[in-house]
């Protein structure tokens, strides 16, 4: 433990800790409920028991600060075509074998912090300076750098900005619901519809994710769902249909769903990239299950990223890659039939 690290500790979280015994602390932020000895860090690598108190050591220390097109999150029903200030700190409570960002998500915050200290007020000031209308907490797991996300989101709202989460949502219900009050849009990874696969591939759990998806929708957050289609793991018709029917039934048929193409990464290099045919099949199945806005990502597939009116079928937003080429929405409505399109448009 270096002195430099100790100096950067952020506020002690008040809501998610309780002491057990003398110096042990149990973290109540995520379902893993790590019981930490003095000096031990949690499974997420960024929450440490120091002197009997849980400390969020990545607070104000992002490892990534970028301006992305919002379509990269991906969020297709949220201020389309806008740039978004995107931040992350190192660490994650999941350990997905296919993680594309493993170089920052599976590292200790004290090993890779590249930026100067960037407290919440500076993040908001930076967003305003670059004319970003929203801030994304993304790349790793924003629900785990919880205090940083929370404080920055509060200030962003005061500053007239919107907040976006890109998350796996494997967090306990209480802190999640509290965070949702500050969030305008979220892209949530629904990785599998099997708890066994969540445990084996990601070291996570399915049920908290499903519960959090529903509670986010109820809290008024614009939620888009991403499912990474991995050959042999979750690419069968049955897997895809199960996921689509759950989304349609529990989140509504107009929930945007993104099927993302898998590429061999990290510890899953033994599997091939997802064939384009599989993604086409997934979109067809989603349509059969009643979902209105289904996209394919990580792949060039003409038309698969366009947003069409759920009523008359007119293409309202035309995209290629992360770029928006046409946007025909008028006050969030289809100019042809007047039907409202679910989303955040201004």
């Amino acid at each position, binding site marked *: 433990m270096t002195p430099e690290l100790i100096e950067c500790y952020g506020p002690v979280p008040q809501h998610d800790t309780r002491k057990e015994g003398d110096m042990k602390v149990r973290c109540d932020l995520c379902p893993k409920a790590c019981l930490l000895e003095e000096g031990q860090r949690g499974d997420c690598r960024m929450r440490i028991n120091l002197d009997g108190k849980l400390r969020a050591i990545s607070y104000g220390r992002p490892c990534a600060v970028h301006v992305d097109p919002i379509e990269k*999150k991906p969020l297709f029903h949220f201020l389309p075509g806008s740039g978004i200030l995107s931040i992350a700190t190192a660490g994650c409570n999941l350990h997905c074998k296919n993680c594309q960002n493993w170089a920052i998500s599976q590292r200790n915050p004290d090993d890779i912090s590249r930026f100067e200290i960037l407290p919440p007020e500076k993040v908001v000031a930076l967003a305003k300076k670059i004319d970003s209308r929203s801030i994304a907490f993304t790349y790793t797991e924003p629900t785990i750098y919880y205090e940083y996300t929370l404080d920055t989101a509060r200030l962003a709202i005061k500053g007239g900005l919107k907040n976006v989460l890109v998350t796996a949502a494997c967090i306990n219900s209480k802190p999640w619901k509290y965070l949702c009050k500050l969030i305008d849009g979220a892209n949530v990874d629904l990785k599998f519809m099997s708890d066994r696969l969540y445990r084996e591939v990601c070291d996570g759990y399915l049920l908290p994710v499903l519960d959090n998806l529903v509670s986010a929708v109820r809290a008024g957050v614009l939620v888009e769902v991403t499912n990474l289609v991995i050959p042999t793991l979750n690419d069968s018709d049955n897997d895809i249909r199960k996921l689509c029917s759950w989304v349609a039934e529990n989140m509504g048929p107009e929930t945007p769903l993104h099927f993302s193409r898998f590429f061999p990464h990290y510890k899953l290099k033994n599997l091939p990239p997802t064939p384009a045919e599989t993604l086409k099949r997934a979109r067809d199945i989603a349509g059969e299950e009643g979902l209105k806005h289904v996209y394919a990502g990580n792949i060039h597939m003409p038309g698969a990223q366009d947003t069409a009116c759920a009523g008359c079928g007119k293409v309202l937003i035309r995209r290629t890659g992360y770029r928006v080429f046409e946007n025909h929405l008028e006050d969030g409505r289809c100019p042809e039939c007047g039907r409202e399109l679910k989303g955040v448009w201004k």
Partner: protein
Amino acid sequence: MKRREFIRRVTVSTAVAVIPAAAAQKTVGVLEAGRGVSYRLFKYTAGRLDIEEILKPAKWMG
């Protein structure tokens, strides 16, 4: 100052500071520092250059 010396000096300074640009500053160049990091160079006062990192889309997903 020879071009090679100029670049070396700026590169060294980027390692220690990221300085926000004042409104009156004017971009005089862009330095590609490698690893996808770029810096915008500002002429601040006579004989002094300030630098600011240019925020670009991330290589990370999400």
